[in-house]
């Protein structure tokens, strides 16, 4: 495999704000690479540099061996892209929008446009004006636009924004299909860790303009330890009791009347015993293995459920 995208010590500042600080990573041909990071981490800035919309202050960014800024015309023949909040000409239909963008690539292939509309499930609404589209429909049209001209690389910035659960599921299947059947290289940023976990071969985690981790998911997620969610009758007292248990790190849970506990070893019985012995009611104790979410929290320092990070689907509150 060879690298389609190569980013070397790339830096970018906006005034005094350093958006990217010498980040390096690559995207190998045929792989699906997830680009993770909280808001303001520098994901969109990186993608804009790759698309030739911004110029890095230092370092290099190449696609297919061509510099993304100085040799943009050649680099752009490799990829199709969508950016967060995709823009279209609202006064034109979805089909006419695709025609507009197809003309930039050469003669318009009407058959391909019809196929792409079908692929993203927009056949029925393809002739409606885009100003009447929902956000989800715009996202799907953006994906069709990115696929025009059969690119070798797909660059997607938050492609699931505005999609309903069915749409997200459909997109996941479609991207996997494109990667496996057509050998398309996919580089996409997302806040949805579950998406990244299910789709990606590798991930790059970015925080405050720096690459915090990159590599295969299996390596990243090889974190030893256990995580517990315990629903209790008295949170404050439970925290006090559990923190006294050797090896347990406890903090209030994001769900009402619950605490979260992290430990290197499986200490579920000891925790349960200590709580019961202290007279605290234990309604439920759930043990889970550490996943990408935990790795993400460790690397970025931003709790996934924090109001400052993007919302992610939360587990339903168990009946009491």
């Amino acid at each position, binding site marked *: 495999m060879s690298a389609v995208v190569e980013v070397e010590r790339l830096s970018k500042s906006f005034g005094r704000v350093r958006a990217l600080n010498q980040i390096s990573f690559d995207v190998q041909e045929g792989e699906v690479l997830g680009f993770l990071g909280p808001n303001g981490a520098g994901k969109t800035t990186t993608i804009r540099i790759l698309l030739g919309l911004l110029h890095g202050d230092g370092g290099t960014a190449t696609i297919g061996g061509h510099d993304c800024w100085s040799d943009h015309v050649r680099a752009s023949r490799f990829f199709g892209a969508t950016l967060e909040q995709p823009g279209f000409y*609202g006064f034109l239909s979805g089909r006419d929008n695709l025609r507009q963008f197809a003309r930039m690539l050469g003669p318009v292939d009407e058959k391909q446009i019809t196929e792409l509309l079908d692929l993203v499930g927009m056949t029925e609404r393809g002739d409606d004006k885009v100003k009447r589209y929902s956000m989800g429909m715009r996202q799907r049209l953006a994906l069709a636009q990115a696929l025009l001209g059969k690119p070798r690389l797909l660059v997607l910035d938050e492609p699931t924004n505005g999609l309903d659960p069915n749409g997200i599921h459909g997109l996941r299947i479609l991207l996997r299909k494109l990667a496996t059947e057509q050998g398309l290289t996919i580089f996409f940023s997302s806040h949805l860790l579950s998406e990244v976990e299910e789709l990606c071969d590798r991930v790059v985690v970015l925080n405050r303009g720096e690459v915090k981790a990159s590599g295969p998911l299996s390596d990243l997620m090889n974190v030893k330890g256990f995580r517990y969610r315990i629903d209790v009758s008295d949170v404050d007292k439970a925290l006090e009791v559990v923190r006294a248990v050797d090896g347990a790190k406890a903090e209030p849970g994001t769900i009402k009347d619950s605490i979260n506990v992290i430990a290197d070893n499986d200490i579920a019985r000891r925790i349960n015993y200590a709580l019961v012995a202290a007279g605290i009611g234990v309604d439920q104790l759930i043990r889970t293995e550490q996943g990408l979410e935990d790795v993400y929290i460790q690397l970025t320092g931003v709790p996934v459920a924090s109001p400052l990070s993007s919302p992610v689907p939360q587990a339903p509150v168990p009946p009491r």
Partner: protein
Amino acid sequence: MNIVLSLVRNEFEKTWRSRWIVFAVLFGLFLLIAAGLYTYYVYREHRWTPPAPVAWQSQLRDEIAGNQHTIAGLEQIKQQTQGQGGTVRVGGRNGPGVSIDQAIAQTQQAIADDQYLIEHNIAPVQSFAIAQASLFALGGIVMFLLTRIFGWLASEQIAGERSDRTITILLSRPPSRNQVLFSKAIASFLISLVVVLLSLVIVYAMFSFWLGSPGSVTDQAAVTIDGAKPLGPGNLLQMPIYLFVVMCFGAAMLGVLCVQGMSLLISVVTGRWAAIGITLALLFGAPLVSTVVAGIVFLISGSQDSSHFLNYLFFNILAPVGSVAPAFGNSTAAAGSGINEFPSEVETLAVWTFGFFLAAWLLFRRKQEAG
């Protein structure tokens, strides 16, 4: 080249599909004006059909008679005021502050000019319907309004893409930024070319009706070289009438291009509403400021010639065509008119135009789209 043609086609489609209403309103306005003028004509002349064409010599003789009548009136006023021991200054086309003696001298000059033309069988440019149409459509109120509309449309070209967020697709796709900018400039110019041409044809049809004949387009027509000087062998240029029309059309389109260059420059660095606002503020505000400045300069210097330099500012895009407007007959001699002004005004306009496009190009090729 193919990619540029495709981009130009895209621009045509976008402009038509998003702004067809503007062109429809323009066409409707033309229809309304034509209908209004025709109604006035029918009411005044009590006839539905065009009048019989009048030879240009007859028109000039009428003008001479009218000017002689004016002189008689001015002489009468002069005698009355002399009796009262004061001087009266008259207004009108010569502007405020022209004394009666000056007005009489200028009117006598107009009579002499007309007589010179009749004696030497030289047709003045305004005796042709196509020339009148050119001056009205390319150097008057029609062009004034059209250039504002073209400026508005051009100001949206990049700024609109930025506001619609389509600029990310436009600039991330294979066409280079040079190609994108070039195709946008070409498309807006071609659209304006068609609109101006259509306007000229409509105005020509109206003048042909008004004068009773479409007139010749191949005859020789005379234009003054220096509008401030008397007509004579050294101050008269004869040219085929079609050449005069082409000259006016070229100058008018250069003016349009200048406005589009300025609008594109604004468009490169701003969003849609800022671009439209700044462009229209400049295009409407600058002539207003220019008029005020001209008034102040005149008050200070006492001469209209002192504000002549304003003709060389970019927003005075109608100046070249204005300078070749008839400067004899009813229009008494004035500084800043005549065909000798034309080349330098066109040259200045060309420099402004080149400067605007160059600045737009230099900015756009390095412009970063941070979103």
